[in-house]
C-alpha cells in the first residue's frame, strides 16, 4: 500500500516536471516571435510585374557603399559603389574610376558610409542626387539619381571622422560635414594629453552648384574641441540655421566611455549659416593651408579626374558674434531632428531616459533677451529652461533618432530598450510603442526629416540580428524592419536583411526617380579619348612599351578578337567600348592573368583594364556578362611574345 502511494506520487511529480519543462521550453522558443497581423503579407507583397511604392537608400555602413531597396517589399535592387572598390563592375579598379578614390592619404579603397541624404528643393526631396558621408577618411560623395552612379567625392580637411554629415539644407544650398573626433588644427605633432590646448573641431559647409551638383568647400568654422556627432538643417521659420549635436564637452581624450559621460548636459550647436555666408562675403575669414582631394566623374568622357586643393576659408566664432549658440542638452546627445514645421528640435541622448525638444521661437527669444549661462570660446550657452519646449517622458532608454510622419507625430528609436516610441508633437505624450529586433539605431520614414513626409511606412534599422534569419555562422547580415504607421497603432509588417551596417536611410516615391532614369549612354556623346565608337574604329596601337587596344563589344563578338605583337613587359591598355544602345545589354571583359577585377561596360560606355603580361603564351579573354544566345562564343586571344613581332589584329571592317 505504502509502495503504491510512493509510485503514484513519483508519477505525479515526474508528470508535473515534464509539463513545466515543456511549457517553459515552448514559451522560451517563442519569446521573441513578434505578433504580426494576418494582413501583413498582403501589405508587403508586390506582385510580379508591378513596382514598389518607394525607393529606399540604406547606407552600407562599413561596406562603404549605398544600397537601393524597394518598399514595401524590402527587395534589394542595387548596391551603388561609393567608397569601396567593387570587383563586380570594376569600380575603383578601372583606369576611369580609380581617381574617384584618391585622397590626401593616397588611394583609399574603403570607407565607413553612414548617412545618406537626398537633395531637396523647398525642404522636400527632389530626386536629383543623394549625398553620403565617408566617416573614416572624411569625405562626402554625390550620387547621380539618373544613373545611380557616384559622380563626385570631395575630401573634408581638418576633420577626424566625418560623422555629422552629409545633411543638406532645404534647397541643397549646402551639405554639411563635422568632425566626430577633434584633432590638432592644423594637424601637428603634439602630445595627446595636450588635447584641451591644441585640439579643435571643424564644421564644414560644402556648397552645391544648383545645376550640376558640383561641390566645393565654402567655409569651415573652428569650433571648441568636442565630438560633433549628428546634424540636421532648420526649415520654415528656422531656415538658415543648422543644428549639430556634440558630446565630450569634458574634452577628455582617454576612456571616453566614462570620462565623456560626466557632464549632465552637453550641447546642440545652433549655427546661423546665413550669417556665416555674410561673414565670408565680408572677408571675416582666415585662409588656412591644408590638403584635400576633389574627384569628379564625367558621364561623357566616362572618366573621373582628381584635383588636389590646398586651402580653405575658416571662420572663428569669436570674430562673428551671433554665428553660433549652444543649447544645453542632457546626457551625451546623439541625433538631432527638426520637425516638418521647422519649429521643434528633438534630441536623442545615448544615456537619456527622456527626449528634450527645443523650441526655435524660444531660442530666438532667449538670444534677444540674452538668457545666457556663460560661454565657451566666444560661443554663448543659452539657458536650458529658456529654450526647452517640452520633454518626452517614458520614451524608453537611450533615445537616438526621431523622424516625423507629417500628421503631428514623431517616432523615436530607443536603443537600450529596443523599441520605437510614437509621441505627439506639442503634448509630448507617448501614444504607442513597438519592439524592434534588436537594438534599433536609426529609423527612417520616407521624407521623415523633410518638410512634407510621406508618412506611410517606417523602417527600423537595427544593430543586432541574432536569431531573426537562418544563421550563417558568426558573421551575419544586418536587419531592417518595416512598420506600418498609417493607422493609430504601429504594425510590424516585414523583416529584411541588409548589407554592411545600415546607419541612416532615405526614401522617395518611386515615380519621382523612375521618370528620369537613364537606360543607356548615347554612343555619339561618348568623349572617352580611347573610345572606338564603331567597329571601323577598332584598332591596336603600339606607343613604346604601351599597347592601346581600342576594342568594341557587341552581341556576340569583340572587335578585334585576335591580337598579336604584344611583348612580355608591355603595359597593355584594353579600352573596351560597348556599342549596344539597348537597355540592359552590358558586356563584360576578363583576361587570363589580369591582376584586376573584370570590366563591366554599360551600353555606350568605355572602360579600361591595364594588363601586364609576365610570360609568353596565348591568353584567352571573354565576355563575363551573359549577353546573348552566343555569349559563350564572345571571346578572343592575345598572343604574348618575347621577340619583336609587329602588331597585328583582325578587323574586316
Amino acid at each position, binding site marked *: 500500500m505504502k509502495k503504491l502511494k510512493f509510485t503514484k506520487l513519483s508519477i505525479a511529480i515526474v508528470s508535473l516536471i515534464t509539463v513545466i519543462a515543456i511549457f517553459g521550453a515552448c514559451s522560451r522558443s517563442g519569446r521573441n516571435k513578434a505578433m504580426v497581423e494576418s494582413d501583413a503579407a498582403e501589405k508587403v507583397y508586390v506582385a510580379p510585374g508591378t513596382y514598389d511604392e518607394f525607393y529606399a537608400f540604406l547606407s552600407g555602413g562599413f561596406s562603404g557603399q549605398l544600397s537601393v531597396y524597394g518598399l514595401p517589399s524590402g527587395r534589394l535592387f542595387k548596391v551603388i559603389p561609393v567608397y569601396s572598390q567593387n570587383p563586380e563592375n570594376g569600380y575603383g579598379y578601372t583606369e576611369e574610376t580609380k581617381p574617384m578614390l584618391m585622397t590626401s592619404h593616397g588611394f583609399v579603397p574603403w570607407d565607413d558610409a553612414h548617412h545618406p541624404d537626398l537633395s531637396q528643393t523647398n525642404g522636400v526631396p527632389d530626386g536629383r542626387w543623394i549625398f553620403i558621408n565617408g566617416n573614416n577618411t572624411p569625405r562626402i560623395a554625390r550620387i547621380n539619381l539618373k544613373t545611380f552612379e557616384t559622380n563626385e567625392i570631395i575630401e573634408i580637411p581638418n576633420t577626424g571622422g566625418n560623422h555629422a554629415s552629409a545633411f543638406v539644407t532645404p534647397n541643397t544650398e549646402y551639405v554639411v560635414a563635422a568632425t566626430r573626433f577633434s584633432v590638432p588644427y592644423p594637424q601637428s605633432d603634439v602630445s595627446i594629453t595636450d588635447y584641451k590646448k591644441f585640439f579643435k573641431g571643424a564644421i564644414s559647409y560644402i556648397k552645391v552648384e544648383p545645376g550640376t551638383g558640383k561641390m566645393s568647400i565654402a567655409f569651415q568654422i573652428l569650433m571648441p574641441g568636442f565630438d560633433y556627432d549628428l546634424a540636421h538643417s532648420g526649415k520654415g521659420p528656422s531656415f538658415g540655421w543648422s543644428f549639430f549635436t556634440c558630446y565630450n564637452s569634458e574634452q577628455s581624450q582617454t576612456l571616453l566611455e566614462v570620462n565623456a559621460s560626466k557632464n549632465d548636459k552637453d550641447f546642440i550647436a545652433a549655427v546661423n549659416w546665413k550669417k556665416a555666408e555674410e561673414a565670408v562675403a565680408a572677408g571675416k575669414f582666415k585662409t588656412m593651408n591644408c590638403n584635400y582631394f576633389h574627384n569628379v566623374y564625367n558621364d561623357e568622357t566616362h572618366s573621373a579626374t582628381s584635383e588636389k586643393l590646398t586651402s580653405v576659408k575658416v571662420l572663428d566664432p569669436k570674430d562673428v558674434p551671433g554665428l553660433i549658440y549652444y543649447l544645453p542638452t542632457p546626457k551625451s546627445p546623439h541625433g538631432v531632428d527638426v520637425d516638418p514645421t521647422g519649429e521643434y528640435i528633438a534630441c536623442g541622448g545615448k544615456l537619456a531616459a527622456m527626449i528634450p525638444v527645443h523650441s526655435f521661437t524660444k531660442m530666438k527669444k532667449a538670444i534677444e533677451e540674452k538668457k545666457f549661462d556663460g560661454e565657451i570660446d566666444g560661443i554663448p550657452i543659452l539657458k536650458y529652461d529658456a529654450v526647452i519646449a517640452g520633454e518626452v517622458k517614458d520614451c524608453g532608454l537611450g533615445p537616438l533618432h526621431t523622424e516625423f510622419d507629417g500628421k503631428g507625430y514623431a517616432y523615436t528609436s530607443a536603443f537600450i530598450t529596443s523599441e520605437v516610441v510614437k509621441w505627439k508633437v506639442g503634448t509630448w505624450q507617448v501614444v504607442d510603442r513597438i519592439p524592434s529586433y534588436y537594438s534599433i539605431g536609426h529609423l527612417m520614414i520616407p521624407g521623415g526629416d523633410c518638410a512634407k513626409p510621406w508618412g506611410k511606412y517606417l523602417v527600423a534599422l537595427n544593430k543586432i540580428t541574432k536569431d531573426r534569419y537562418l544563421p550563417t555562422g558568426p558573421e551575419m547580415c544586418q536587419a531592417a524592419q518595416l512598420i506600418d504607421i498609417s493607422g493609430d497603432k504601429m504594425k510590424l509588417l516585414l523583416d529584411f536583411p541588409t548589407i554592411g551596417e545600415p546607419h541612416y536611410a532615405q526614401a522617395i516615391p518611386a515615380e519621382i526617380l523612375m521618370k528620369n532614369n537613364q537606360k543607356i549612354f548615347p554612343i555619339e556623346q561618348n568623349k572617352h579619348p580611347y573610345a572606338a565608337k564603331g567597329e571601323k574604329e577598332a584598332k591596336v596601337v603600339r606607343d613604346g612599351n604601351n599597347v592601346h587596344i581600342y576594342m568594341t563589344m557587341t552581341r556576340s563578338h569583340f572587335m578585334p578578337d585576335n591580337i598579336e605583337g604584344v611583348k612580355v613587359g608591355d603595359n597593355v591598355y584594353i579600352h573596351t567600348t560597348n556599342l549596344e544602345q*539597348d537597355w540592359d545589354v552590358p558586356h563584360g571583359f576578363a583576361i587570363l592573368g589580369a591582376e584586376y577585377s573584370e570590366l563591366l561596360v554599360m551600353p555606350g560606355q568605355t572602360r579600361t583594364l591595364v594588363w601586364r603580361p609576365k610570360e609568353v603564351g596565348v591568353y584567352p579573354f571573354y565576355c563575363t556578362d551573359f549577353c546573348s*544566345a*552566343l555569349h559563350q562564343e564572345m571571346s578572343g586571344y592575345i598572343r604574348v611574345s618575347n621577340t619583336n613581332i609587329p602588331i597585328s589584329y583582325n578587323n574586316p571592317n
Partner: protein
Amino acid sequence: MKTKFKILIVISSLLLITSYFLPIWYISLDAPQYPEGMGMQIFINDIRGEKEHDLKNINELNHYIGMNRIIPDSISELKYMPFIIGALILLGLIAGISGKKIMLYIWMLVYFIIGAVGLYDFWHWEYDYGHHLNPEAALKIPGMSYQPPLIGSKQIMNFYATSMPDIAGWIIFGVFFIGLAITTIMIFGKKKEV
C-alpha cells in the same frame, strides 16, 4: 461632275500630303525579353525605329539569322516614293478641279496600279529579307524563313511580328476608297444628273 464630288476629290488628294510626314506602315516585334516592345515605321522616304535605337537593335538581332541589315539609304524605293505620291496628288487635283470624269478614271487606275505594285514590292522586300540569308549565319534552322506577314501577325521564333498600315497608310487606303466610291457613282449613278 457635281461640285461636292469635285471638292471631295480635291480634299482627298490634299489628304495624301500627310504621308510626307506621318508613317505609312509599321512592323512591330514583341518578345518576352523586350517588354517595352520594338518596331519599325516606314515613312515615305525613310525607315525609322519606333524608339530611338530600335532599328539598330533589330539589325543587331537579325545578324544572328544572317538577315541583311536594313539600311534605309540602300532602298531605292524610298527615293522614288515622294515623287510617286506627288504624282498621285497632282492627278487627283487635276481630276477634282477639272471635274472631268476621264481624269478621275485615270487617277483611279494609276492609284490602283501604284497601290498594287507598291504592296507587291513591299512583300518582295519582306520575302527577300526573310529568305536571302547569309549562309555563314550563327543560327540556321533548316526550312525556316523569317518573312514577316504583309498584313497581320505571325510568330517568328521568340518574336510576335505584326505588320499593319500606320496612319498615313490608312489615309492612302481611305482616299482610294473615296475615289472608288465617286467613280462607282459616276459610272452607275443616274446619267442625267451628271
